[in-house]
């Protein structure tokens, strides 16, 4: 794990839980659910200027099986909601969800019959981001919130093998 060179000869004690949380929180791989203009900001978030790699989240996984956090970026129509929920259900636990921007959080300016008024109608959202679209900084902030949540609220004891 690279620890050997840092620690030199010897050992250190920890718990499985904190080790798992430490490694999990520094490798939160996003599932980019780019639905509208927010997705452009999401790309900037992954690009070199904002550099999500600093937080271990540079690998956008287009396969739900390999991802940990779903970033719903953009407005979600009723037709799309079924596809999103299906992808969410395919993501392995533990998983988190970011509702990026006004539309994903509340429906935003799309106050009409075809758009779901907030993806929390069918997804358990962990972090909401305001803005239309939000700056990549806000998405980084949301990612840090997720990391904090993993470190403080998660436990390997919660992982079930059902």
């Amino acid at each position: 794990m690279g620890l050997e060179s840092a620690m030199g000869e010897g050992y250190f004690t920890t718990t499985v839980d904190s080790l798992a949380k430490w490694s999990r929180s520094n490798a939160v791989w996003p599932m980019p659910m780019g639905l509208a203009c927010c997705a452009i900001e999401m790309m900037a978030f992954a690009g070199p200027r904002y550099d999500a790699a600093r937080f271990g989240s540079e690998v956008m996984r287009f396969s739900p099986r390999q991802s940990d956090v779903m970033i719903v970026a953009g407005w979600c129509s009723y037709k799309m909601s079924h596809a999103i929920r299906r992808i969410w259900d395919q993501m392995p636990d533990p998983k988190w969800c970011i509702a990026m921007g006004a539309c994903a959080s509340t429906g935003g300016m799309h106050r009409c019959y075809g758009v779901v008024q907030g993806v929390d109608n069918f997804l358990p959202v962990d972090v909401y981001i305001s803005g239309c679209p939000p700056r990549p900084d806000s998405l980084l902030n949301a990612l840090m919130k997720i990391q904090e949540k993993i470190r403080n609220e998660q436990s390997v004891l919660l992982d079930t093998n059902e």
Partner: protein
Amino acid sequence: MSEKTAKEQFLDDIKKYLGDDLLEIQDGYEFPNILIRKDRLHETCQWLKHEQHFIYLVDVFGTDRFTSEGRFEVIYNVVCLRTRVRIFLKVRVEEENPSLPTLSDIWRSANWNERETYDMFGITFEGHPDLRRMYMPEDYQYYPLRKEFPLIGVPGSIELPSTTPDKA
């Protein structure tokens, strides 16, 4: 007297062709709006395409005027590719069982546009080969662009995905 433009010539022609069945012409700007009687619609469009070379049906759409008489209006945007005249042909339909003859046998492009108009306003097009809804679910009970339809939609009328995944 100067030469007539193609548009003026066409307006004279359609006035002569329809007579009293032509209800109103608004010619305030570049493209004339021509309101005609519903029962002459199909015949007029045949004439437009075959005699006047209006071979391009750009768009078909509806409006809800929210009046007690002639509530809905269906508007056909047609272009003559020979004289470059573009007109908006309008017909009014009643609120009770709104229906019109289909124009998809004249212009193929009317097919999907009429389906959209049916989806949004509930105007049926008789003789249409495949009158299904365009955007909304097939079992949807409302017509979203009618004025009485709430802007936000009817809560619960479209199904959201289940939040409890199936146990495999």
